[in-house]
């Protein structure tokens, strides 16, 4: 069954050409030309056939890309790839903090975008033969089930946040470098953008830590990377 992707882009030619190239890759595409249209389409799809992934341009008329993503994230953990125009800190970090899982920069080769989509849609679960439940203090992680609980209450993580947490949990007590996390969670190579990891760790902390500014589970090891306290 083909994955359904919602394409949010206001430039109609870009939208049309992207649709063509992504359909060639085997995806089912729906289009939205603005943030409002996107939220509508997403809400409607939830009832019938939810989207598997969203591609959102940050430069949108009306509600901009950041606000759209934030709004989507209030109720959904669907994977989101952001399309940015520049790679300077502000845009990329803002987009990641709003809730995007990854980003590509215009102009991109369609193959790049296809690779990022594939990486996000990967069904690889690290659970075969692994433990059913991992417990760290008040945090309970169930990799197979895809569920995380804090103090008994379920925590809603995006796919990427979940994979990140699982990766750290599978290596609890060990320090994982940004490069390692980029490779295992995002399938990036050596030259991946470390900010992806940094912002996702921040987002993770707001969801699983009692006090995100004084983390007790997801710890930073200066100069080396991150680890999950055993």
């Amino acid at each position: 069954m083909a994955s359904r992707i919602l394409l949010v882009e206001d430039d109609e030619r870009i939208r049309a050409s992207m649709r063509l190239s992504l359909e060639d890759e085997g995806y089912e595409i729906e289009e939205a030309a603005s943030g409002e249209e996107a939220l509508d389409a997403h809400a409607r799809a939830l009832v019938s056939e939810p989207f598997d992934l969203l591609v959102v341009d940050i430069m949108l008329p009306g509600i901009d890309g950041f606000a759209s993503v934030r709004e989507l994230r209030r109720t959904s953990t669907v994977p989101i790839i952001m399309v940015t125009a520049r790679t300077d800190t502000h845009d990329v970090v803002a987009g990641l903090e709003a809730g995007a899982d990854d980003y590509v920069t215009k102009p991109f080769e369609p193959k790049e975008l296809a690779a990022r989509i594939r990486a996000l849609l990967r069904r690889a679960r690290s659970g075969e033969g692994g433990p059913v439940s991992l417990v760290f203090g008040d945090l309970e992680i169930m990799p197979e089930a895809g569920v995380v609980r804090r103090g008994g209450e379920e925590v809603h993580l995006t796919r990427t946040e979940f994979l990140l947490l699982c990766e750290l949990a599978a290596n609890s007590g060990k320090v994982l470098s940004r490069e390692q996390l980029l490779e295992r969670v995002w399938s990036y190579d050596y030259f991946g953008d470390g900010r992806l990891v940094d912002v996702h760790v921040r987002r993770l902390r707001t969801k699983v830590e009692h006090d995100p500014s004084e983390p007790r589970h997801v710890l930073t090891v200066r100069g080396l990377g991150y680890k999950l306290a055993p």
Partner: protein
Amino acid sequence: MSTTTGTGLIRRTRAGRSHRPPPEAPEARPGPAEDGAGEPGRPARRRRARPPSLTRRHRHLGLRMRITITFALGAAVLSGALATITYYSVRSSVLSQQTNSLLHETTASAYLLKPALTAGTLQYARWLQDTQSSDASESLLYHHHRWYATAVAFSPPSPIPPALQQVVTHGGDAAQTIVVNGTPTYAVGVWIAPVRSAYFELFPLTTVLRTLHVLLASLLLSALVVTLAGALLGSWAASRALRPLHETAKAALDIAGGRLDTRLETDEYSDLAVLTSSFNRMADRLQERIEREISFTSDVNHELRSPLTTLAASLAVLEGRRDELPERSRRALDLLSAEVRRFRRLVDDLLEISRLDAGLSDLSMTEVPLGDLVRRSVAATSRPVPIHLGPGAEDGRVLVDKRRFERIVANLLDNAQHYAGGATDVVVSVDGPFARISVEDEGPGIPPEERERIFDRFSRGSSGRRRGLGEGTGLGLAIAAEHTRVLGGRIWVEANGSRGARFVVELPLHRDGAL
């Protein structure tokens, strides 16, 4: 928000916007193939903009030195004149006073002698002894054409000079400075009229002279001290006076270096208000102009991205259906693809350069082992170039932004491909505190006079450069140079033995804890 740097400079920084250099990158040092204050790879406009430095005149005396010397000379002349005048007036006053008082003393002694002489008694020597003034070392009496003295050590002729003798014996009181046994002595003579005798006393001048010498010495010493004080004062006055000039020069250098919001304080030096306010106005205009240019360039570049995205996506679709196309369409498609790729590279490069110019690019520095970094960077370019690691190169650690480093390597390898038939080797070595990454080729090489210009934008060198298929954008080396600068390193090109060129990127090695 404004910060004051040093004295007299205000730097206004706008929130979130700082032009290069970024704070983490250490200052780049000049490379071997360029002059004083420029940096390799900087475009020509920056070299022209370099303002004159006040401290660079070594052949002539600096302004400050000249002011100091003038003050010192003035002080020397004044204090010297003062010392001389003081000395001579004191001296003449002392000496004339002395003449009077010694004359007085001698007269008094002569007066005491008078009765004895009148009486005609003969014990001259003893009288002379008794009546001699306390200050006199000797007294002599010329009586009845004979000389009498307290000391018998005088051999004739008497020590009294004939001229003095003559004056006194003719009825006058007189005095003269003579030298007796090497000692300057004051000889005073009085005429004792009733007994027709001349009475002389000799006063050694050593004390007086010594006092005068001491006076002279202390006057000279104070003149010297005053001269030195004058020099110091001159030096201080010069630096105070020149400070605004130094600060203007420094501000100009800062602006040329990219800190466009540097301004001078206007209230401190009211005399120089014209200088500072016109400087600030000029800087305002300059900053406006440059920022307008940068944002224009950036907007244009940004606008180019959207059509390029559509082009790239549409072409991908067509290329996926290449087999369905007739022969002619296929060829047209190939041309289209190649040109769009080239256009895309150009826009990417332009965007990269304008981002660097605007200082908008962020840095994400990590410490990585050198060998791994170079291997992966070369691998990312998909060019099979052999890599050679010297001793210590494998594990040497550098602090870099990996993506930028990869761009440097990619641009150097592309450049070698476009102009020199491809890079032959990549050599990594460690030299003291530096790591060196060299990209070597066996192409036509770069003549020495072009080795700096080649890092300029859109420069392609002289003859020997061919436009091949898919050649470079003209920005590759400029971008490599900018990235190197931002990483705190140096880049230059040298000859590769007897043929070809060697591009060298030098980066500081990173020791744990050291930065």
